[in-house]
């Protein structure tokens, strides 16, 4: 099932995400995904997020697909050249995967293997263009394929970036290159997001607001200091800080649900990043009336 089909049916699309393990034991990842199954349209599988070496997102996506859970296969340009990227996209098709999220990827220096060669042979835009070509029956060089790819291509955008205009310009380039839906970096301020959407809607492509589940004031401060494009407003940090430890989980869920309620009318879907607390996703959706 392609996300683009759900959007064209006018559905408000809900996705969440799980991370493959650092190792071979998939139990926890599959349990998390099973817990999401009845409430989301698809589950993103992150690709060695934050440049931490893990089990691959392609096989992990296939594991979900085989269990009847729709995966969104995340693919970054950090670790593979254009030969490997295109090959993995073809392999994804063979595995029955229909949705792929094309990203540039974090730099290797942020992860647990900082001495690795950062590849970035392609970037998010040229990866989308390559995938679009595979969908059209040729590879990036124009060589014909025996059997086209048939992938729904997604991309990311950061609504709360330092310079939102550069994000919008790049978003336009991604649309031109073949992106048919967007998931955003985490947003916490509904007003900032609504302003962004006013400009982004000109592209005519569905946008899913990214929601991160806040776990503590410390986590919010850490993200503000270290994560690009994420700005947690001070009142939310204060709200978390004033919450007793035992009630923080519920407070985080409450805040996430509130943000979803505040943004759902200006976007076409949401993408919830629970960062290990996937069990709380149903509660967030309940709180948001979804």
């Amino acid at each position: 099932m392609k996300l683009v089909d759900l959007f064209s049916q006018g559905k408000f699309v809900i996705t969440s995400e799980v991370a493959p393990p650092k190792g071979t034991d998939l139990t926890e990842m599959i349990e998390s995904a099973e817990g999401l199954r009845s409430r989301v349209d698809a589950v993103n599988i992150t690709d060695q997020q934050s440049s931490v070496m893990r089990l691959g997102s392609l096989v992990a996506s296939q594991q979900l697909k085989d269990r009847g859970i729709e995966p969104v296969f995340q693919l970054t340009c950090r670790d593979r050249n254009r030969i490997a990227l295109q090959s993995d996209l073809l392999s994804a098709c063979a595995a029955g995967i229909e949705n792929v999220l094309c990203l540039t990827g974090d730099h290797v220096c942020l992860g647990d293997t900082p001495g690795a060669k950062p590849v970035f042979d392609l970037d998010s835009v040229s990866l989308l263009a390559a995938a679009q070509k595979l969908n059209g029956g040729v590879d990036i060089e124009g060589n014909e394929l025996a059997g086209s790819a048939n992938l729904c291509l997604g991309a990311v955008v950061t609504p709360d970036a330092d310079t939102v205009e550069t994000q919008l310009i790049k978003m336009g380039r991604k649309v031109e290159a073949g992106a048919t839906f967007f998931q955003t970096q985490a947003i916490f301020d509904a007003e900032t997001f609504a302003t962004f959407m006013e400009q982004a809607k000109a592209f005519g492509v569905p946008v899913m607001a990214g929601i991160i589940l806040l776990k503590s004031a410390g986590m919010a401060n850490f993200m503000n200091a270290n994560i690009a494009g994420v700005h947690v407003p001070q009142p939310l940090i204060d709200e978390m800080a004033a919450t007793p430890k035992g009630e923080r989980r519920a407070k985080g869920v409450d805040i996430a649900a509130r943000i979803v309620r505040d943004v759902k009318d200006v976007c076409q879907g949401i993408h919830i990043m629970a960062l290990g607390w996937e069990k709380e996703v149903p509660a967030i959706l309940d709180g948001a009336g979804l």
Partner: protein
Amino acid sequence: MLITKRKPIDEIAGFLSGESSVFLLGCDGCAAASGTGGEPELLTLQSELEDRGIAIAGRKVIDFLCEKALIRSGLRPYSGLLAEADSVIVSTCGIGIQATATVVELPVHPACDTVSLGGVRGEWQGEERCQECGQCFLEYTSGVCPMTACAKQLVNGPCGGSKDGRCEVEPDVRRCAWEVIYERLQRQGRLDLLRSTPLQIKDHAQMRPPVELRGTKRWAIDLAAAKEEVS
């Protein structure tokens, strides 16, 4: 030593949309030795451009364009002519093009691609670096090299990794190259370039040094001398 090859005139002329007058800048160092940036090559470029109806506001060859202080002093007597120009066409290596773009306010167009010389480097004193990628992107990036100034060598715009304008790699010492590109194009009223630039895909095959340059000669001056001896 950086070996450069002149871009085809159609490519250079294609950079000049809406411009009627340009200033030509050459380099008497590596570029002159490469046969791309000396006075004779500038004269050739001048007549090719004039044939296409482009006026030449002025012309200057400077020793060495990798040194910004030399560019400043070399261009000082030409400020009047520069004021008449819409842009500067720089016929030298990627470092000289970047250094010029840092020094002059006008848009800067590259007339050359810089070709790998198997790791043998030129000497320079500034922060500009050239990857010798053989497919100069500086035309599209206001003279900031995405191959060396961007940690991910992104050629189609910024990633989502910059924070407060700093690169996610070494934020203490690195600005986001695409922020710098954005600011410079905004200052020049040329932000549309970011939207209109065709999709860029690096061709790593262009980084291989041409056969005739491989192996033996470290300095193009030697190459030029050797050619003279043979002829």
